[in-house]
């Protein structure tokens, strides 16, 4: 029931939040047991993930239906904008925790492990970054340099930001062909990025002996690029949905919040990558 004067849309009772809560319960419970190698845990995660997918389709389906049905006025649109902005801020803080850890490890804990006191414990440890071997490590590993795949990936992501903007121009100028073509290009660049990153991981893991256990270098490398990759995947899926909706004729030049939200998210992922490239690969 929307209130008549302000036109603010208040949705009808909905089952989706409860479905989502049940899904996360099974995923959380299952994950706790799966990391301890209980096979039931994997089943619980699978059940939870299936329920979560059902919720995502249903919930977003409702939202898309309401949006296309013209239920969202300018005020609701503004709420969505604020909401997406604050959500991205929360993501910034999530990556902030990992960057904070990286800087602390590089500036404090690794140098300290090479000081006089720790020479008693680990006389052979060389406190440089990237560490070639952990203090207690026996197997040396190589660090991932910036030139090569990471540089190509940087170019791919930056280009995708550009193509996304061209797609947006197409949408705003009601040039649907341009919208769909450049959106498709963006999605393709995104998935190419993911493919190359998968290849990079495989190469690092099997040929450079670089694993999660390769000292704090390996830990920060895989967790930071991994969480970034996960966000690229989420962003690419969002853009794919936007692409499919564009093909179906959704969005108007003056009413396309979903496109903009996905675009904001994509640019955010882009910026995170640039910082990653500088501090994880390069310096």
């Amino acid at each position, binding site marked *: 029931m929307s209130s008549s004067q302000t036109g603010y849309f208040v949705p009808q009772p909905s089952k989706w939040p409860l479905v989502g809560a049940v899904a996360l319960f099974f995923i959380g419970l299952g994950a706790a047991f799966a990391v*301890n190698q209980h096979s039931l845990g994997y089943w619980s995660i699978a059940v939870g993930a299936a329920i979560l997918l059902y919720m995502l389709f249903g919930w977003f389906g409702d939202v898309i239906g309401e949006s296309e049905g013209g239920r969202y006025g300018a005020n609701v649109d503004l709420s969505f904008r604020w909401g997406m902005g*604050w959500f991205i801020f929360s993501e910034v803080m999530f990556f902030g925790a990992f960057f904070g*850890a990286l800087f602390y490890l590089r500036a404090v804990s690794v140098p300290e492990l090479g000081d006089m006191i720790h020479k008693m414990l680990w006389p052979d440890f060389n406190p440089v970054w990237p560490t070639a071997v952990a203090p207690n490590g026996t197997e040396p590993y190589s660090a991932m340099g910036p030139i090569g795949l990471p540089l190509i990936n940087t170019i791919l992501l930056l280009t995708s930001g550009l193509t996304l903007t061209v797609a947006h121009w197409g949408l705003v100028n009601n040039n649907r062909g341009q919208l769909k073509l450049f959106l498709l290009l963006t999605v393709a660049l995104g998935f190419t990025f993911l493919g190359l990153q998968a290849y990079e991981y495989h190469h690092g893991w099997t040929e450079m002996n670089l694993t999660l256990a390769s000292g704090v270098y390996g830990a920060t490398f895989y967790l930071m690029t991994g969480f970034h990759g996960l966000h690229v995947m989420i962003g690419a899926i969002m853009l794919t949905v936007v692409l499919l909706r564009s093909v179906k004729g959704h969005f108007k030049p003056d009413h396309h919040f979903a496109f903009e939200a996905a675009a904001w998210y994509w640019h955010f992922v882009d910026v995170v990558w640039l910082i990653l490239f500088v501090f994880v690969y390069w310096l």
Partner: protein
Amino acid sequence: MTTATHVTDHAHDHHDHPSGIMRWVTATNHKDIGTLYLWFAFIMFLSGGVMALCIRLELFQPGLQYFRPELFNQFTTLHGLVMVFGAIMPAFTGLANWMLPLMLGAPDMAFARMNNWSFWLLPPAAALLMISFVVPGGAAAAGWTLYAPLATQMGVGMDLTIFAIHIMGISSIMGAINIIVTILNMRAPGMTLMKMPMFAWTSLITAYLLIAVMPVLAGAVTMVLTDRHFGTNFFNAAGGGDPVLYQHIFWFFGHPEVYIMALPAFGVVSQVIPTFSRKPLFGYHSMVYATASIAILSFMVWAHHMFAVGMPVTAQLFFMYATALIAVPTGVKVFNWIATMWKGAMTFETPMLFAIGFVCLFTMGGFSGVVLSIAAVDIQLQDTYYVVAHFHYVLVAGALFSLFAAVYYWLPKWTGHMYPEGRGKVHFWWSMIAFNVTFFPMHFLGLAGMPRRIPDYATQFTEFNTMATVGAFAFGIAQVYFLFFVLLPTIKGGQKAPQRPWEGGQTLEWEVPSPAPFHTWEEPPARELVDKLSAEQKLH
């Protein structure tokens, strides 16, 4: 609105939304969701309270009586987690849900469906925490701070706790986004930011803190998880990491978290005291700026929790001065509350009693906080009962008392019934005395060197511990009294509440009938009404 139209409204309501259990599980109404939050928080409060009583029971006399030390550690850990994430935070989110749309003149929260998801994620998270008691190895026993390397050991219970924290974090972030967007985008025409009720301001700033730090906690426990199961070495020196890193990340979350539990309490008290002093809030603008200052400073003081782990003297000095600096905006608030009461036509109904109790006891907790901020002193008092006394003064007599003040203050609006005033006063004085009997002796225990989180103690600590245990059980019984003799009777019946139970109330929630109808402010309040109320509160 007259009684007759109110009755029709009510009849109309029943066609509007499902009844029975479906009303609650599919709710999109901010009042229903607020009620869910508040009941959940109360149930968690009682569960966490039972764990606290188990702790006090074991500490009634020296020696090991009732629980194995491992189980004792699980109680202290889960007591903290349940009270922080299950009781205090959801209770304030529930209050914000119930009251913000009413106070701001909005038809509902900005994202009504997501609002319900925020709530319904909490019971699964609580279930994961409770399940952890019965898995092999028991629940997490590393203290609510889950410090590495303790947290990188232990069994499945720790993993369940990690995922419970992830789910509660998702819930908090969505709830906070909802609160911020509602405040920024759904205020009635004429209600500028600087004319909002103080509770809206503190909710806004609290929500900002939540969005800023809950993801950091998620990052911290994720690193614990990968250290536990995926071979990383974030918190292991042998792999190049550092256990102290965990403490830095945790307290970067943990200190703003303290204000996440305190700022909304300030907001509640800033609504209650003017009402019962029959005067506008003294220094509204300085209250807003003080709240914002506390929020900003809260990001710069985290390492005062870590003086004893060792850090450069310069860092100790910085964190010490920054911490002591927080006393300034907090002092501004306390003086403003006192100045609001000054020469007011004060009456002492139960909400006001709890609010004044809050001001007195929270200030004491603040003072012991200033004592602890001094690095040289803190190194002596770190992890003693002095710290336990300090944070229970700010969290029980602070956050919890303000919640009781809020419940008594708005119960007539929620239920349409007046609570029994005499019983409310009994609840207040009983809680007030029992609280001090429980926690005041802990200052002495801490100064004498009794460490926290230990199930046994040297015999010279016996008297004060016995006293604290007696007080704790009295405090617990007071809350059961509150449930059965105040809360439930008021919900079921009792004297009918007028639209304005307190003639001093000057905010928008007193402009709708009691009980508040299912839908309120579907038409925003008239501009003249908003302006009139702002003028009465001397807001320009």
